[in-house]
């Protein structure tokens, strides 16, 4: 029976833990109460999903590590999240655009993983997929509302689309591990995910009266553990208790 590599599972988990942590920064700072609650709800879903994946990664590692060890005791270079999710929240529009780019990718990824040849990944995806559909709908609706909103909201959200576009290429550029997982039917063909993503993103940006950025240089490295400066700060906050009081328990 097919089993994903630990590193592949960590990539899936790290993406959503880090994005969940970023969204958590909005707690108490949202523009209105309902949206503050919405973002932290999404964060909770993502962190919950990441726990299921860390539990699985810990089982694959099989050296007594737990989900908490994986989340709390790895440093920047051992984190494999994509660069998109570690980007700062910026204004509301930037958070929404980052979310929309990621959710749309996450939606099509889950759609594949539901039928992954790795049974455990398939079970986790069947649980997550229905939640992710809610996220993807939410962020797409907000992109439309802001893009086709006031002059100010349009301009801000357009500049976020332009700024974040450079981090989207990494999602669809397979490396050796992605290809290996694809060959075993564990992970998707990223070309297919890219085609679906481009179609949906184009459709929503058009409704939102936003311009799709021109071909641009795409950043890469996150999923191999090469990060920008931001991840270190995120981890310093996320892992503070374990760093200050090693092995402390709540």
């Amino acid at each position, binding site marked *: 029976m097919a089993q994903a590599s630990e590193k592949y599972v960590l990539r899936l988990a790290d993406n959503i833990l880090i994005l969940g942590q970023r969204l958590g920064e909005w707690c108490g700072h949202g523009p209105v109460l*309902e*949206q503050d*609650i*919405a973002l932290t*709800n*999404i*964060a*909770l*879903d*993502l*962190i*919950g*999903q990441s*726990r*299921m994946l860390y539990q699985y990664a810990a089982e694959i590692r099989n050296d007594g590590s737990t989900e908490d060890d994986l989340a709390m005791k790895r440093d920047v270079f051992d984190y494999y999240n994509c660069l998109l999710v570690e980007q700062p929240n910026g204004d509301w529009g930037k958070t929404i655009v980052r979310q929309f780019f990621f959710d749309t990718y996450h*939606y099509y990824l889950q*759609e594949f993983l539901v039928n992954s040849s790795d049974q455990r990944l398939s*079970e*986790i995806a*069947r*649980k*997550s*997929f*229905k*939640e992710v*559909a*809610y996220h*993807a*709908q*939410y962020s*797409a609706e907000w992109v439309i509302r802001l893009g086709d909103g006031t002059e100010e909201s349009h301009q801000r959200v357009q500049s976020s689309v332009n700024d974040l576009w450079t981090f989207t290429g990494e999602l669809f550029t397979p490396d050796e591990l992605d290809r290996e997982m694809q060959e075993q039917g564990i992970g998707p063909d990223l070309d297919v995910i890219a085609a679906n993503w481009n179609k*949906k993103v184009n459709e929503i940006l058009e409704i939102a009266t936003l311009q799709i950025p021109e071909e641009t240089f795409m950043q890469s490295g996150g999923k191999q553990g090469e990060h920008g400066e931001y991840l270190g700060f995120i981890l310093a906050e996320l892992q503070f208790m374990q760093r200050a009081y090693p092995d402390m328990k709540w």
Partner: protein
Amino acid sequence: MVTEKTIREILSEVKDPEIPVLSLEDMGIIRDITISSPTEIIVTITPTYSGCPAMDTIADDIESALMEAGFSPTVKTTLDPPWTTDWMSEEGRKKLEDYGIAPPQKGSHNKRSLFGKAPEVRCPHCKSMNTAMLSQFGSTPCKSLYKCQDCFEPFDYFKCI
């Protein structure tokens, strides 16, 4: 002789910590009960929402309820098949509405679809269908926020997954 019925009766007293009118049975999260010896009981539960913080409390509550009754319980979780709001019992739905939370609709539209209209939900207070969704995400991961356009009361809707 310990029977599954005995165990289920004990578990019917264990409530969802966030919605205390619902028992675990009403929620449909108890997937299996195995009686491996006269005192050893394995209860298998399935999580509702992935990030639901009540799940750890629920597992603890099951353990303590069974321990109080003199058993040595083990609580396991299973992901497959994934929990769906369709498993909530009729009685549970009624209790929810009486409690002021609109129950999830049964057999709702494709739960994995990307876009769709907000479901039409009945106000749990005045029973009007003239309601509107305020936010897809409510006070807990399992709820959306609605308001009634007739009695003007805001209310939670237990959303379908």
